[in-house]
């Protein structure tokens, strides 16, 4: 994780140094991506860190899952 954080910090510094030459839309997207990355990295350090809803999506399609598993 330390290696990852070092790489992340280097790329953010590089972006901040170069951002003047970038169009505003491009800057906005890159800011959003770095912001999300840092936010999720903080979440990753928490004890219950499984915040992405992939696991829960199956709950919403339970009828299909049950229908398919009926055949097993």
């Amino acid at each position, binding site marked *: 994780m330390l290696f990852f954080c070092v790489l992340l910090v280097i*790329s953010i510094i590089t972006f901040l140094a170069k951002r003047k030459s970038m169009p505003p839309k491009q800057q906005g997207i890159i800011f959003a991506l770095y912001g999300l990355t840092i936010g999720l990295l903080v979440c*990753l350090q928490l004890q219950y860190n499984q915040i992405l809803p992939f696991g829960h*999506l199956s709950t919403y399609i339970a009828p299909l899952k049950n229908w398919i598993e009926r055949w097993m």
Partner: protein
Amino acid sequence: MIHKQVINHRQTAWLVGSVLMTAMMISSLHKIVAISKMDAWFSQIFPVGYAIVVAFVLAELSRAYPGKNLFEILFIVCGKWIGGFINLILLGYIWIILTLDIKGASEFFRQTLLPRTPVEIILIVFVLLMMYYGRTSLEVAARVNEIYFPAYFVLSMMLYFLLGNEYNVERLEPILSTDLAKIFASNLLPIGIYGDILLFGAFLHASTHPRLFFAAMKHGIIIVGFTVSMLLLILLGVMGFTIASRLNFPIFILVQQIHVTDFLDRIEIILFSLWFPAFTIKVIVAYLAFLVCLGSFGGQQHYNAFNLPSGWFLVVTSLLAFPRVYDFDTFLSYTLPVIVLVIQIPLLLFLYIHARMNRTMDTQVTIPKGTKLYRFYRFMVWTGGIALGGCLVTLVAGDLFVDKSVFAGFFTAGMYLVFFFIALIASYGEMQALNHGKQKLGQGKRAGSFRQ
């Protein structure tokens, strides 16, 4: 992205093969086997048909909006806000594919080949590799794929011979005794993976010959259908459905069963060192599509600027997603097919109607009518269509009407495989005929079939 790139029809077909086939090797096969048991190898015909329809719509879009990719077309057709919203959904869909593949591959390698290496290390190394390719383009991935995909395909087919001493045809019997509804249900699961064909929408602007583009994608899809059917046939013949349905990574265990001689005991290491680059190509194609989609939001032709932030974002989200193999497996089997059908069917229907209304580029004339080549092309198109239809008819008729005797079972199964193989050969003939037609018309010396 701004420079011209050359990707020919064969590279397109093999890229489609890599994208669709390698993802299936990780995990999805055991659920299919659990549903339709010894008849699981009939589970590819509906997904193949679905992927061909998607490829057809993409080719129609390429004809109606030459030089534009799927995301740009959506902005043109739907406007800035609605088009942006739909593109955001597509961006989320591609992100799901990437997360699923990165985490799936990392968990697979940790549990099978690298048990002492933390999953974070495998994941970061994998994403760094993606970011390296993200600095390049689809052309580089296509060229690397030309080395690995044929080797991967040949080794997959050779499994039948390498595992000949473990194979018992009785494990497949009684053929087509499974209820037709179960076979239909098992045909639904691979749709999630075959839906990845939509990724090629990100590279539509590179297509200058939509008909050839479609023929190449169709050939790639049928290669996948045939190869996966054969792999399932080998898997079931070696392990039987009971064992195969209970393994998380059945193909890995299948390859481990190869015992040709005592000194060739670890053939899986050789096979997986070929499988890994082929799988990497699949993830790289998805990653490039992700970057192109982001680029369309930024209004930029160059997507290199998004490479580093996208890579780090994917590392973190992949670490957070799918904590257990069970979650990954459930998502791949049940949720992904629903996501694919819910997103793709309305979108493609809407875009197809628009494409028919705005068709500007008539490329049906790549082969002059009345020539021998044109007759050969028509023959191949019809043969391919009839052969795929024949697969379906054999499956339904074999399950409903033919008695369950050993002879009848093998006859219908043989017919199914022969029809599938004819479809494969016909799709190759169709692609080659179109390519020869293009060359004869003197268009071959342009900057390749597809430019990006």
